[in-house]
C-alpha cells in the first residue's frame, strides 16, 4: 500500500510538473518581448537614359535646342515682335462733301404748266484726306464703310435729287441714290448706305489720285402757280471705312515694333557660376516676314546686351557697317503680289560683329527696339497693302554647342533635419547608395556635400576627397565628337558611426563642378543630339533593431 502511494505521488508530481511547464510556455505574460531583428535589403531606386538635349532642358527649359546646319546642336534664345497694325499706319479717314443747288442756277423758261420739268446737273469732286500728306491712293476695295446723305429742299415745286458716285462701283454698277421732295420742300435723308465690297477708283479725276467724282442732278416738277425760288442742299458723310486692299503710293511711314528682351537663361542662373567658357561660333540672327507691298527698311533703335561683368554692351556700336542701325538700315524684301509673305534674314556672327565678345561676357539678356520705314526711295505708285499686312521680326541668339566649359560650379546650403537619427532605436545601421553612370557626354562632374551643425562647424563630408568625381567625361576625337561612353560607379556608404556624427546636423553645404572634356587644356567639343547618359541608382541598407518591442513601438 505504501509503495502504491509512492508511485501515485510520483505520478502526481510528474503531472503537475508537466502541466506547469506547458502552462509557462503559453503564458505570454512571461514573454520578455525582446527582439533582435537584422536584415539587409538592396533595391534599385531610379534609372534614366537621357539625351544631352533632355539633360540641358532639365537645366534650361527656355532655350530651344535645334540641329544646326553643321549637324550638331545649337541652343537658341529668341524673341518675336511684330510691327504695329497696318490700319494704325495706313488708314482711311472719314470723308465729307456737301453742296447746294439754288434757283438762280436753274433756267425756268417754259416752266409754267402741268407736266413741265426743269433739271440742273453738275459734277463735284470728293477729295480724300489721307493718313499721310504724301500719300497718293489709286484705288481701294472697301472691307467696311458707311455713307450718310442728308438733303433739304425749299422749292415750292415738287423735286427729285440724284446723287451718283460713278467711280465707286460694285459688280460694275456705280453707287447712286435719289431723294424726292413734295411741293414746299422738306428734309430727306439716306442713312447707313453700306459700302462693303465697293471698288473705289481714285484716278478718274484730273488729280488722278485721292479723288472721286460725285454727280448731282436736280429735277423740278411744275406744281402750280407758285414762286420758282428755293434751294436744294445735300451733305454726304463717309465713315468707318476700312479697306480690304489699297493701291497707290503711301508715302514715308514709320512702323514701330514692340520693344522686347531675349532672356539668356543659360547665364542667368543665380546658383551656378562659370570660371571660363568658349562658344566657338555664336550667332545673332534676324528673320523678317513682310506682307506689305511697300519697299521698307528695318533697323534697330536700340540693341544692347547686358552682362554683370561688362554692364550694357551696345551691339550696334560694333556692327562693322552691318545694315542693322538707323544710319544703315536694312532693305527688307517686300511682297510683289498680293498675298505674298516675303522672308528675309540677316545673320551676324563673330566675323562681322562683336557677338563673340558679347556672348563670352555672359549676357543675361539682350534688349532691343526696332523700327521700319516705308518708301525710302520716294514716289512709287506700286505700293499696296491688305488689311492684315504686317512685318514680323524674329530675333535669335544662337549658341552652337561647340566650345568648352571650365569650372561651372555651384555652392549652396540647405537646412536638413536628421533628428530621427537620434532615436535609441534608429533601425538604420548602414546605408550605401550606388550610382552607376555611363556617360556619353563630353562632360565631367565633381561634387561634395558637407554636413555642419548649427554653427556651420563641419561634422562630416559625403566624400573623403576634396570633390568626388561623379561623372567621368567621355573622350572626344579631334573634331570634338564623343568616341564612347565612359563609366563611373560611385558608392556612398554611411555606417552606424558616420550616421551618429550627423545627429546634430542642421545644414548641408553642397558644391558641384562641371567641365567639358579637357577644358583646362582648351579642348573644344561639339554636342550632337545622339549623345546620351545612362544611369542606375540603387541602395543597400542594413536595418537592425534590438530591444523591448513595447519600447520600440513607443519610439515610433
Amino acid at each position, binding site marked *: 500500500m505504501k509503495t502504491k502511494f509512492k508511485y501515485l505521488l510520483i505520478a502526481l508530481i510528474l503531472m503537475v510538473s508537466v502541466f506547469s511547464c506547458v502552462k509557462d510556455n503559453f503564458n505570454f505574460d*512571461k514573454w520578455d518581448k525582446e527582439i533582435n531583428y537584422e536584415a*539587409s535589403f*538592396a533595391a534599385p531606386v531610379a*534609372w534614366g537614359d537621357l539625351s544631352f538635349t533632355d539633360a540641358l*532642358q532639365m537645366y534650361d527649359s527656355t532655350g530651344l535646342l535645334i540641329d544646326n546646319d553643321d549637324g550638331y546642336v545649337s541652343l537658341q534664345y529668341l524673341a518675336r515682335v511684330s510691327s504695329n497694325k497696318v490700319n494704325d499706319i495706313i488708314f482711311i479717314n472719314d470723308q465729307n462733301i456737301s453742296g447746294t443747288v439754288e434757283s438762280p442756277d436753274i433756267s425756268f423758261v417754259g416752266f409754267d404748266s402741268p407736266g413741265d420739268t426743269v433739271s440742273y446737273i453738275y459734277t463735284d469732286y470728293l477729295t480724300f484726306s489721307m493718313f499721310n500728306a504724301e500719300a497718293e491712293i489709286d484705288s481701294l476695295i472697301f472691307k467696311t464703310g458707311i455713307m450718310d446723305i442728308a438733303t433739304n429742299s425749299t422749292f415750292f415745286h415738287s423735286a427729285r435729287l440724284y446723287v451718283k458716285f460713278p467711280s465707286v462701283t460694285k459688280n460694275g454698277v456705280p453707287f447712286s441714290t435719289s431723294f424726292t421732295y413734295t411741293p414746299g420742300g422738306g428734309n430727306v435723308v439716306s442713312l447707313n448706305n453700306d459700302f462693303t465690297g465697293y471698288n473705289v477708283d481714285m484716278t478718274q479725276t484730273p488729280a488722278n489720285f485721292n479723288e472721286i467724282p460725285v454727280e448731282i442732278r436736280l429735277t423740278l416738277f411744275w406744281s402750280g402757280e407758285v414762286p420758282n425760288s428755293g434751294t436744294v442742299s445735300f451733305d454726304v458723310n463717309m465713315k468707318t471705312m476700312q479697306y480690304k486692299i489699297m493701291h497707290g503710293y503711301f508715302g514715308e511711314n514709320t512702323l514701330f515694333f514692340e520693344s522686347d528682351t531675349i532672356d539668356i537663361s543659360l547665364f542667368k542662373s543665380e546658383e551656378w557660376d562659370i570660371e571660363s567658357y568658349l562658344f566657338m561660333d555664336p550667332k545673332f540672327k534676324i528673320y523678317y516676314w513682310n506682307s506689305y507691298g511697300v519697299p521698307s527698311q528695318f533697323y534697330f533703335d536700340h540693341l544692347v546686351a547686358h552682362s554683370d561683368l561688362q554692364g550694357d554692351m551696345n551691339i550696334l556700336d560694333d556692327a562693322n557697317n552691318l545694315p542693322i542701325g538707323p544710319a544703315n538700315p536694312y532693305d527688307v524684301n517686300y511682297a510683289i503680289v498680293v498675298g505674298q509673305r516675303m522672308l528675309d534674314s540677316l545673320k551676324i556672327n563673330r566675323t562681322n560683329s562683336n557677338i563673340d565678345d558679347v556672348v563670352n561676357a555672359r549676357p543675361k539678356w539682350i534688349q532691343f527696339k526696332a523700327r521700319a520705314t516705308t518708301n525710302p526711295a520716294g514716289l512709287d505708285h506700286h505700293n499696296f497693302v491688305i488689311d492684315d499686312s504686317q512685318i514680323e521680326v524674329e530675333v535669335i541668339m544662337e549658341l552652337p554647342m561647340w566650345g568648352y566649359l571650365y569650372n561651372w560650379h555651384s555652392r549652396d546650403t540647405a537646412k536638413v533635419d536628421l533628428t530621427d537619427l537620434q532615436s535609441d532605436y534608429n533601425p538604420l545601421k548602414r546605408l550605401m547608395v550606388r550610382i552607376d553612370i555611363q556617360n556619353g557626354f563630353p562632360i565631367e562632374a565633381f561634387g561634395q556635400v558637407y554636413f555642419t551643425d548649427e554653427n556651420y562647424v563641419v561634422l562630416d563630408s559625403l566624400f573623403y576627397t576634396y570633390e568626388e568625381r561623379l561623372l567621368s567625361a567621355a573622350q572626344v576625337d579631334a573634331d570634338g565628337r564623343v568616341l564612347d561612353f565612359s563609366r563611373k560607379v560611385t558608392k556612398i556608404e554611411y555606417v552606424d558611426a558616420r550616421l551618429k556624427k550627423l545627429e546634430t546636423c542642421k545644414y548641408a553645404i553642397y558644391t558641384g563642378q562641371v567641365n567639358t572634356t579637357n577644358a583646362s587644356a582648351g579642348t573644344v567639343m561639339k554636342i550632337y543630339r545622339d549623345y546620351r547618359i545612362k544611369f542606375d541608382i540603387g541602395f543597400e541598407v542594413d536595418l537592425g533593431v534590438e530591444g523591448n518591442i513595447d519600447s520600440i513601438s513607443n519610439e515610433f
Partner: protein
Amino acid sequence: MKRYILLFIFAGVFASAGAQQALTMYNMDRVMQTQFINPSVDVPYKFHIGGLLVPIVGQLPPPIYFNYGNNSFYYNHILHMGKGDKADNLVLDIPLFMDKLKKTTHMRFDTQIELLNLGFKLENMFLTVAITEKFKYGMSLPYDIFEFTLNGNMPYMQENKPHDFSGFGVDFTHYREFAVGGSMQANDKLSFGGRAKILFGMANVNTNFKELSLYTDPEDYSMTFTTDMKMHSSLPVYFDMNMLEVDSAGISLNEASMTAFEDNPASYFLNLKNIGLGFDFGASYKLTPEIDLYASITDFGFISWNTNPQNFLSKGEYDFHGLEVELWENDEEMDESLKDFADTLFNIFKPSLVETGYMTWLPTSFYIGGKYKFHELLHFTALYRGEFYRKSYMHSLTIGVNSNLTECISAHLTYSLAHHTANHIGFGLSARLGPVQWYLVTDSFTNMIWPQKATNINLRMGCNIVFGYKKIKSSASMRT
C-alpha cells in the same frame, strides 16, 4: 556507440518525414476503421455498424479524426523558455526558427467525420460501405518568404541566387466520400482488398505556383520578378474580377451568388456536380507463421470541380530598375509617369480569369509494413509510410508493440520518426462491451502532453456496434 550510430542514421533518414495519418491505427485490426488504411485487413467480426448517423452509439463519442501536421517547426522553435537570467521568461528565437524551417513548410489539417460505416462477412469476403465527410486544408510557406522577411534580400543577392517563393500554396478541400470495399482471403497466405470511392466535392480552393521568384542583381540591384501562378476555386459562391484598370482593380465576392447561397444553404451539402473517384488497395502476405507482410495504397484518385469553377492565372516577368527618370515639367506629368509604371506592372501580373472546370488529385499515401508475432499476446510491427504532397515527398517510420490483451481489449504502443522529430509516441486502445466497441488512437500522445513541441497532433476516436466476434487463431508454433 553502435546503438547511437544506428539511431543517428535512423533519425537522419526519416528527418524529412511528413504528415501522418494512421501509424498506430494501422495495426489495430480489431477496429473496422483499419480497413480505411489497409483494405485487406481481416476484421474479426461478422457484422459491424458505426458512424454519426447511428443513433446514440454513433455519437458516444462522435467518430472523428483530426490531424495537424507541420513538417518544419513547432511552437518552441519560435518561443521557448530562456536560459540563465531568462530562465523564467519566454524568449523569441528567430535564429532557431529559421534553422528549423525546411525548403517548404507545410502546415496541414485533416478533419474527417464518419457519417456511416457498415461491414459484414460473406463467405471468405468482408464487405464494407462507408460515408465520410472530409475536410483537408492547409498552407505551404516556402523558406524564402521567411528568409526575405527576416534577413532581407541581400544575403541571396550576394550568393547570386533568386528568392524562390514557388512553394507558396493554400489548399482547402471539402468532399464527401462514398466508399464500397471488400477484402478476401485468396489462400492461406495471401489476402487482399480494395475500396472504390465516389467522391462528391463541396468546396475547393487551391493554388499552384509553378514559379514565383525574385532575383536581385548584385551588380545594379535591379529586381526580376517572375510569376507563373494559378489559383483555382470551386465554391458555392463565386468571385467578380475587375481587372480593367489598376485603380479599380480587385476581386470581390459576387453578391448574387452570395444571396443565392444564403437563401438555400442546403444546396451546398447536396451538391452532386463535383464528382470524383478514388481507390484504396491493400494486400497482406503471411511470410511465415510468425511474420506477416503488408502493403497498401490509399486515396489514389481525383475530383473534377465544376461548381462555379474559376481559375485565376498570372504569368509574367518584369525587370524592375527603379523609377524611370524623365523630364517631368510638372507634378501632373510625374503622376502620369508613375501611373504608367503602375499600369505596366499591373498589366504584366494581372490575373486572367478562365471559368472552366478543373481537377485536383487526392494526396495519395502508401504503406509498407510487417508484423512479427512474438507471442500470441505480443506482436511487434514496423510500418513505413510515404506521401507525395505539393512537390514534396513526406515519409515516416513507425515501430510498434501490439497486444490483444483480452478478447475485448487491445492495446497498441508505437514510436514514430516523423515530421523531422523523433518524439512521437503513439497509443491506441480498443475495448468492447457486448456489441459496443470503442476505440481511441493517437500517433503522438506525447505531443498532446507537450503541445509546445508538437509538429503533429493526431486523434481518432469513435464507437462501433459489432457482432459475431471470431478470434483469429494464431499460428500453432507461436508462444503461448
